């Protein structure tokens, strides 16, 4: 089975949801022309990233009667979509969210569970913390979505792996930082290292879609990338430029790799659970 996956590495207008929606529809059309079956967008692709006090004013509910989601749901009849947005729940809590849309329906919404609130980041000040990590079924197999800081922690990808995800859709608005003599920013090197590791450790497909452009002095570095279950790079978009990266993934590779390397089969989840319970019940948690 084949998945033609499109990563949309785009800039956004900060707080201008209507303009960003137009850009989504444009890229969806471009991806459709190239035969894509799934199109994924970066973190907060509909709103921009450093929202601060804009957060409540750009929030949307992913429903058919929402003016922003209606055209996206319509487009999802032809190809599946993952978009980044601010979700507002019925009690008016605001989340950094990704929605997976297919066949005119919302298949799954993920709320970012790790909100970086340190250094240049201040997400915990403006957003509510997501509280669940679930894989979900799609026509391309079982998928998991995580947003930026979610996969700076090892546990969310691990949980999604155990929950059956064979394809991780990782989205970011990652600012480049740590300029030194190296070929890339320190932050770029770090993210590429961990995303590749997840593909290798879990024998799964990993797609990371990162935005580009600037918000005030922050540069978003792009470099969106796909790794296969061997940890090999399938394709990568350029750094710091808008790009539509369309690649064919041979999903049968999952079977061939796991026949050779049965890491999933041999994973001792009961042992993990036992030891985790012991650690959490002891005084030594996080030492």
């Amino acid at each position, binding site marked *: 089975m084949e998945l033609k996956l499109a990563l949309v590495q785009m800039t956004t*207008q*900060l*707080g*201008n949801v209507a303009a960003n929606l137009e850009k989504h529809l444009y890229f969806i059309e471009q991806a459709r022309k190239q035969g894509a079956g799934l199109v994924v967008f970066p973190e907060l692709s509909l709103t921009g990233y*450093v929202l*601060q*006090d*804009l957060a409540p004013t750009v929030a949307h509910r992913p429903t058919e009667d929402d003016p922003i989601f209606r055209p996206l749901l319509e487009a999802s009849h032809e190809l599946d979509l993952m978009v980044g947005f601010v979700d507002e729940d019925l009690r008016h809590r605001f989340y950094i969210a990704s929605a997976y849309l297919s066949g005119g329906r919302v298949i799954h919404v993920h709320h970012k569970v790790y909100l970086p609130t340190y250094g240049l980041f201040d997400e915990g000040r403006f957003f509510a913390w997501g509280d669940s990590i679930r894989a979900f079924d799609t026509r391309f197999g079982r998928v998991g979505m995580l947003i930026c800081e979610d996969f700076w922690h090892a546990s969310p990808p691990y949980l999604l792996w155990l929950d059956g995800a064979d394809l991780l859709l990782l989205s970011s608005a990652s600012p*480049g930082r740590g*300029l*030194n*003599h*190296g*070929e*890339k*920013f320190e932050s770029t090197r770090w993210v590429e290292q961990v995303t590749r590791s997840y593909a290798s450790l879990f024998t799964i497909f990993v797609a990371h879609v990162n935005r580009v*452009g*600037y*918000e*005030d*002095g922050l*540069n978003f570095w792009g470099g969106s990338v796909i790794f296969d279950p061997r940890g090999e790079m399938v394709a990568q978009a350029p*750094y*710091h430029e808008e790009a539509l990266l369309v690649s064919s993934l041979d999903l049968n590779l999952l079977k061939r790799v796991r026949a050779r390397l049965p890491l999933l089969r041999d994973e001792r989840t009961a042992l993990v659970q036992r030891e985790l319970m012991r650690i959490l019940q002891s005084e030594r948690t996080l030492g």
Partner: protein
Amino acid sequence: MLNVDLTINCDLARRVLTSFIRSEVTRVGFRRVVIGLSGGIDSALSCALAAEALGPENVLAVCMPYRESSSESLEHARLLIEQLGVPTITIEITDMAEPLIRRDPAMSKVRKGNILARARMIVLYDQSEAFQGLVVGTGNKTEILLGYTTLWGDMAAAINPIGDLYKTQVRQLARAMNLPRPILEKPPSADLWIGQTDEDELGFTYAEADKLLYLLVDQRYSPEECIAAGFDRGFVERVLNRVRRNQFKRMMPIIAKVSNRTVGYDFLYLRDWGT
């Protein structure tokens, strides 16, 4: 002494900084910029980056000599202008500044230097309107941290592409961009009086200060760790004291909060709001 490596990847820096200029100028409806050229390396680098980002025809190089400015400064600015092919205008600030300076025969060098820096700010913002271009800043990370600047003078700008590069890194990038040799080789000077050099006035070299600041600021070393790494205790204290004392120059005026929502505290938007 700990080996502190401040080397940067110049290709990456150049790409990010030119794209930054393009993005931050065009998104607010401009396509041009104005830059005050002193003849020194910081303004030369900012100007070269802007010319590469926007096209030389969209960068106005403004020379603002004072009667005591070194003629060398102007010559060096000319070399750069010719190399880049940017349009230029020369506006002497002597006539603007003299009446104020003459009012006090006992005026200190510092006061005079501040007046000149602020006179240049007035000229640049006037040219900003006339040329329809944003003012591009030319302060580097070292001088911003040390506060070796004039408040509302040379710090005044709409965007600053080189404010996160230490002086050592500015030199490296300027070399990589092949700026005129005399600009690369001369000692740094604010040229506020005859024979002035930054390093004489500061009492230490940029090379030393940059390494220390990199450890303190970028690498979060404690002062004691810097001393253990080989820096002189007195030097560490002097630099730290300068950084702390000059925090005010890095901030907008502080507002006394009395309402529920106050600019600067809980009215939080990026400048790029809506663009």
